[in-house]
């Protein structure tokens, strides 16, 4: 039976890949959907490789997974991973079955590496399969679906058993909570003080500021962003330190950082890339890849990760950053990234929908992000586009940004390029959701002067 299900999955994938030439539809879900309809326990009947690594969290899963895959492959490991970012159960089923030998039921790889959706991966396979789980952070994200971060924490905790080694971002107090409430072995990674850190929280909209043991407010040495930073409890030993893997001396101009005592390149000049690189380094080192072998891949096989989204129109450099609404801390890092870039900047912000998964449009998250940081003299103009452009513009107004800098653009597909190229200066950064990447790029590329 398992044999037949695997074959069906493979045939369906093949058919979809042929059909894909004619209809543009993602075919990663259907085969797995049908396979699990026939046998819902199919993934528990396979032979797994020595390492089954999961990567989960509210943001940074994709880039962390990509970097781990790169290091592993660069060192000769055969890796099966969801490189298209499809992380829901059926897509993972499709992926795994497509790499399974129907006769031996063996998944053909040295490492099965899976980016996992934090609130549904308990459905994928039974708790015995994961050898390692990386938790990048647990912050507000897709609240309509997830509720609050603490509920996501509970879900992840319920999705594992004590056989999984946890690799934890110790700078996030909610992630570190796993060590107080599970008996799993664990490794802690974190980033030491950085130039732009805050000694006080930037604002009051922080999560989980209290000790899970003592319920008292945590003390912070510094904040990197949001509630992510170096903290401790006065009354017990809960806290960021001691760290097993330390990231430090981050240089986002020349894109490198130091991990323990080794200098590694970052493939993007953003702080979250330092976290992804640190998590990937930690994980690969733990499963036996030597420091030099990791550095060889990261430092020699180097390619800017967002390069396909950087282009020029005339003299203007445009960088498009996919920014997911509802994930305030991830959005905030986009704002931080823009602020770190030198020179005068023009920003385009907007979204047509809050989510790709659901049609509910909660706008609360706009007030969890410190858009106040954009109130600086290097920002020339902020163009607000998309269905919620007035709500975005209003947020900019509350952030104290002068009226003459905030432009609401109705019908951006027609008029954006004229407005931007004739009425603003400096490099252009778009802070928009995935569903607008194509139309905005098109609007900016069609210059009518």
């Amino acid at each position, binding site marked *: 039976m398992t044999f037949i299900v695997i074959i069906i999955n493979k045939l369906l994938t093949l058919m979809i890949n042929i059909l894909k030439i004619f209809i543009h539809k993602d075919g990663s879900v259907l085969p797995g959907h049908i396979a699990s309809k026939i046998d819902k326990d199919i993934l528990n009947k396979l032979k797994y490789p020595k390492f089954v690594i999961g990567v989960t969290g509210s943001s940074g899963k994709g880039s962390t997974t990509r970097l781990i895959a790169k290091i592993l492959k660069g060192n000769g490991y055969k890796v099966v991973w969801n490189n298209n970012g499809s992380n829901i159960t059926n897509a993972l089923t499709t992926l795994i079955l497509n790499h399974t030998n129907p006769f031996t039921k063996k998944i053909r790889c040295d490492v099965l590496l899976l980016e996992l959706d934090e609130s549904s991966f308990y459905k994928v396979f039974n708790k015995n399969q994961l050898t390692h789980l990386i938790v990048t952070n647990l912050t507000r994200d897709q609240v309509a679906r997830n509720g609050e971060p603490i509920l996501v924490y509970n879900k992840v905790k319920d999705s594992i058993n004590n056989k999984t080694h946890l690799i934890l971002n110790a700078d996030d107090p909610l992630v570190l909570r796993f060590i107080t409430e599970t008996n799993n072995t664990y490794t802690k990674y974190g980033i030491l003080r950085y130039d732009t850190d805050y000694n006080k929280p930037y*604002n009051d909209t922080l*999560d989980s500021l209290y000790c899970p043991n003592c319920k008292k407010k945590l003390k912070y040495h510094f904040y990197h962003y949001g509630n992510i930073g170096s903290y401790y409890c006065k009354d017990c030993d809960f806290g960021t330190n001691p760290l097993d893997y330390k990231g430090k001396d981050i240089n986002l101009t020349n894109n490198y950082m130091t991990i323990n005592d080794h200098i590694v390149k970052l493939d993007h000049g953003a702080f979250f890339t330092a976290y992804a690189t640190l998590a990937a380094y930690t994980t690969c080192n733990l499963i036996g890849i030597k420091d030099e072998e990791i550095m060889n891949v990261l430092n020699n096989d180097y390619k800017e990760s967002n390069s396909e989204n950087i282009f020029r129109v005339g003299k203007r450099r445009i960088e498009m950053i996919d920014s997911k609404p509802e994930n305030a801390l991830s959005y905030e890092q986009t704002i931080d990234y823009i602020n770190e870039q030198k020179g005068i900047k023009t920003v385009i912000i907007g979204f047509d929908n809050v989510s790709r998964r*659901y049609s*509910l*449009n909660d706008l*609360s*998250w706009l*007030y969890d992000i410190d858009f106040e940081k954009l109130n600086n003299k290097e920002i020339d103009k902020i163009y607000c586009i998309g269905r919620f452009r*007035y709500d975005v513009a209003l947020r900019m107004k509350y952030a104290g940004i002068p009226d003459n800098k905030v432009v609401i653009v109705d019908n951006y597909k027609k008029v954006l390029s004229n407005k931007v190229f004739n009425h603003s200066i400096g490099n252009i950064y778009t802070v928009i959701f995935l569903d607008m990447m194509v139309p905005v790029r098109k609007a900016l590329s069609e210059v009518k002067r």
Partner: protein
Amino acid sequence: MKKINILHLYYDIANLSGDAGNMMAIKKALDEQKVNYSIDKLSLGDNIDFDKYDLVYLGHMNYEVQELVRDDILKYKRNLLDRIEDGMYFIATGNAYELFGKSINGKKALGLFKYESTKVKEIISDEEIQNTERLVSEAICYMKNFDYPIIGFYNHGNENNNKENILFDVEKGFGNDTTAKVEGIHKYHFYGTYLLGPLLIRNPFLLDKIIKDLLTDYNIPFKEVDSLDKIAYREYLRNFKIELK
């Protein structure tokens, strides 16, 4: 001129969904009215005297924080309830509103009102957001003697059985529980609603009403001001085809 004293209560932990936006809105409204005011921020471990305040705001919080806040706020029960009964303005959004009922999941709450809050019992099946034990929806509500529809968002894990002093009729979205089409409570100058996040930014006419009532109590004149808030509100109504009453 009388100085208006405002308190942002449990400001650092009751802030789960952009709730701090409400304080920005109140501050901006008082600036526009050129009123003399102060804003205090107090939390766990502080000593709070509600006698000092004319308006208090408390936002949405996660269920663990709600437990910490419940423990703490009970210390001030007599003082707080006296002040609300005397006419102090209190705005509680999201699950902050539950603290003023009799109990939350069997644990004693402030008891200003009779309702009890309990975990949502029914699992709501929703294709898009999957099965959830929370009441999650966009909201359109109407308030008695008020022309402007209230817009916002519901996302709460408890429900309550309040039947009195209803604040909103719910046109779209969940009410106090899975079936009630009414929501929130309004008595004295207390406003409690499950709507969460920047309610007063998204509903500038509701903010006007509250600020106008507050200023009128102190014989301070109120003048309506045009603002981007109101343009954004009207734009949202247009966008989602929501009509004025």
